């Protein structure tokens, strides 16, 4: 087999195109959010409107659950006769326990009936299966603005886009959906552990920020004290399982109904929150913030986020610009052991595959860590710090 290494001996890349984009930690940017209904409906706001986090921007009704009545089975009759037995028409409203189909013989001496198990509307019936389908009343669905801001686009029948100037922080993993509250720091440094004795009733409705780790006791206490959300560096996987009551198999979250939203910024285990993230949260302590724990790592990455609207002038024009490629000088963070969490700058990008500690040959880069030490790590194990 032709060897990749012998062809590339001694060369370095000017720029790496294959790399992992980093999590965003931005002090000021225009955050744009698109808020959509799952199915078409009505948009309730106009272009240019100023909205609050809890303003309902769109509303619709989802079809209710269908219920199947095994009508001819229940009446002990052949399915072909069902059209004759129906006492309700397609489209008719029925109440719970109301008769939908009946068979009467011997002048009413023998009567067999099939009734509706729910309040709803007759949707269809079939003379081949003998079934009647009754559908429950529609379920209203509302979409809130989630962040305060200005409506900049109306997507007809589906929803809106809105913009606000804000600090924007992405976490690595979260649970719980969109919520908002006042940002409050409970620790003095990013390596401090958030424990239950730090949490009291005064944090009801607030988003609390911890350092490197949260204990299961602190998590339970936060629920008890009706805290809105928690932002912290790390949590033990086992504690998360205990807290949720089930093991997470694949990272698709955000729908948990647990009364709180939790965002971890670094990973599982005890991990100091990155200094930049911590400093930014500290800078905006006391501000109202919106957060969403929704995480989806497969098929369309969604990372959890904290959005802190403020009126300071912004440095970036857009929140979704793509970072340039990785070049010498690019700030990076190592995201796997050893050196997990270390921050540094790219020194060089050797083209040739290099043997690492596991004996595997990989594409690597050299990173100068903050303490001046230069380490070689797989390119796959760093992420770009977006500044």
């Amino acid at each position, binding site marked *: 087999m032709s060897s990749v290494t012998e*062809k590339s001996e001694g060369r370095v890349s000017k720029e790496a*195109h294959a790399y992992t984009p980093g999590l965003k930690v931005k002090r000021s940017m225009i955050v744009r959010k698109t808020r959509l209904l799952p199915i078409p409906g009505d948009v309730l706001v106009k272009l240019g409107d100023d909205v609050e986090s809890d303003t309902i921007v769109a509303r619709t009704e989802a*079809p209710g659950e269908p*219920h199947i009545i095994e009508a001819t089975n229940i009446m002990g009759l052949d399915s072909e006769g069902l059209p004759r037995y129906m006492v309700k028409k397609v489209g008719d409203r029925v109440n719970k326990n109301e008769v939908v189909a009946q068979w009467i013989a011997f002048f009413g001496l023998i009567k067999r009936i099939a009734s509706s198990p729910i309040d709803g509307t007759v949707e269809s019936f079939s003379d081949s299966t003998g079934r009647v389908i009754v559908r429950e009343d529609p379920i209203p669905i509302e979409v809130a603005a989630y962040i305060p801001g200005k409506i900049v686009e109306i997507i007809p029948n589906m929803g809106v886009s809105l913009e606000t100037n804000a600090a924007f922080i992405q976490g690595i993993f979260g649970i719980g959906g969109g919520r908002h509250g006042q940002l409050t720091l409970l620790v003095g440094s990013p390596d401090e552990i958030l424990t239950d004795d730090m949490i009291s009733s005064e944090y009801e409705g607030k988003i609390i920020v911890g350092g490197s780790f949260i204990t299961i006791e602190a998590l339970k206490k936060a629920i008890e004290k009706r805290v809105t959300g928690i932002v912290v560096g790390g949590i033990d996987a086992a504690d998360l399982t205990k807290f949720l009551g089930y093991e997470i198999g*694949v990272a698709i979250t955000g729908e948990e109904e647990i009364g709180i939203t939790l965002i971890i910024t670094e990973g599982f285990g005890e991990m100091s929150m990155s200094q930049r993230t911590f400093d930014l949260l500290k800078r905006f302590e006391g501000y109202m913030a919106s957060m969403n724990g929704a995480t989806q790592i*497969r098929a369309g990455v969604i990372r959890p986020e904290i959005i802190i609207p403020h009126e300071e002038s912004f440095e970036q024009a857009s929140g979704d610009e793509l970072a340039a490629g990785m070049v010498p000088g690019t700030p990076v963070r190592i995201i796997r052991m050893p050196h997990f969490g270390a921050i540094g700058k790219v020194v060089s990008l050797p083209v040739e595959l290099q043997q690492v500690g596991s004996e*595997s040959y990989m594409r690597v880069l050299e990173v100068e860590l903050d303490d001046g030490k230069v380490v070689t790590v797989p390119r796959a*194990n760093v992420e770009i710090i977006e500044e």
Partner: protein
Amino acid sequence: MTIIRKSKEEMQHILATDVGSTTTKARFFIKRDGEWRFLAAGEAPTTVETPYEDVTLGVRNAVREVEELTGHRILSEDGSGIAVPYDGKVGVDLYCTTSSAGGGLQMMVAGVVLSMTAESANRAALGAGAIVMDVMAVDDGRQSYQKIARLRSLRPDMILLAGGTDGGASTHVIKIVELVNAAEPKPRLGVDYKLPIVYAGNKVLRPQIEKMMGENFALTIVDNLRPVLKVENTEPARTAVHELFMEHVMSHAPGYTKLMKWTDVDIMPTPAGEGMAIQLIANTYKRNVLGVGLGGATTNVYSIVEGRFVRSVSANLGMSYSICNVLKEAGIHNIIHWIPFELDEKDLENRLYNKMIRPTTLPHTLEELIIEQAVAREALRLGLEHHKTIATRLKGVKIDRDTGYIFDQKLEETYIKMMIIDIIAGTGGLLSHAPRRLQSMLILTDAFQPEGVTRMFQDSVFMMPHLGVLSTVHREAAWSIFDKDCLVRLGTVIAPAGTGSPGEPVMTVELEMLDGETMKEEMKFGEIKRIDLAERKEAKALITPHKGYDVGDGPGHMVESMAMGGVTGIILDARGRPLHLPEEEGVRKEMLLKWIHALDLYPEDKLKELL
């Protein structure tokens, strides 16, 4: 649609990619001295996700790596994509790709009887390379409302409906159709297109199905997949699924419309490409083959037993995105069982969760490598268990038995018995990238537990899917590369079935090399030993199992066989089948270390640091 811009004879450069759920892998092939060979590989993170949402970016990045490594320019100068054909300076003569990004092809299947039509429909969908999210049937034990709720929440890419033999059951088929209609399932990608449905059931019902579903779904009607009970005809359904995948699903995934224009051959789901490569092995050696693709999100198992090809896709067993699902399904104890050093359960759990949330990272240290390889054993074991539930005989068919004809509708057990499997072949990043080939040899052996005499193969640098799709247009090139550069002959495992006590004699193996050299090995229970026999060499093996042990001809019976050489040689495995690891921690670790030392599996100095 296939566009061949140069005749096969004129072709000199071929590019193939696999847009995986985690990584996009480009493989570059050239014809040198009249022979097709693999030249270079490039890899980059897949860009199906935000902020990119365009798979062609990842393809471009992976191709750029190939350009950098070879100096051969492939991307067109105007940025329009891959230059085809090669104009003397830039480009390739053929470009093809497989894809499993964005979750692959996610399907639901439904039939009347769970163990009959629904099972055949399941096999047809899996055969097309789909991930089957749920199998629904009239007798699946769920209430109608539960099935409706499931249909509404799943959002499949496509539904395959079967049921009834031709002229047979009709009411039950209509009941299933009613359920689907009532649930109004929405497609996963995009709200503005109709959900594709393939109907492959009782042909008598076609007009009624058309009437009931024609308006609200993109309905395709094909031949019944169980026209009569004793015949399973999955091909028409499989073909329809594949065509609809291209037409409806792929065209709605981010960037695929562009990628479809770049390729000269239809994009194929990765498992379909991988399956073709495994079939190439079976066709070449004319033996029973068990193949596996261990990916980041899924584990695909393929079997070709007595000519019958079956594929299973375990949607949530994988080494990155789905690594925590392996943890969940296998249990932490089963994973820790394979680790020879001290490791705290909590620490292990945190490491695996961190891999899940940062799925593209790679093991940098020996410790991390051993942990991932432990998870791989469990993912493969579970994948094979799942496969066995699909690789079963047709149910509901009269089976010729000694006692006469029995109409058996009970769950038939699988026909996959490790003793009848002659070849095991593995592919996927973890196996291909294992720093020592013996590691992948032992991972496959520990997970699948081959019995008797089994040849072991693996993919060299992960290109089986690439060669599978290439084989559909250029079989000769695909086979040439497959044989010389892709298929690594690991060697042969000789393992008797049966268990005993440590130190007890298990088998005597006499080997006669082609140069006349002979050797004799006495194997005791609990031992594993390696004998050098180079690739493309063979040795005559005379295996005499002791009483209670079987190598293929019954307990205690001698077997004569040809053992294939390979990069790891011949492995004499007397650890017992089934293979049990002792529960007592100290004894278990000692045993694992004994095996590791016997095979020189890991670097001694680094391993010592961990102990």
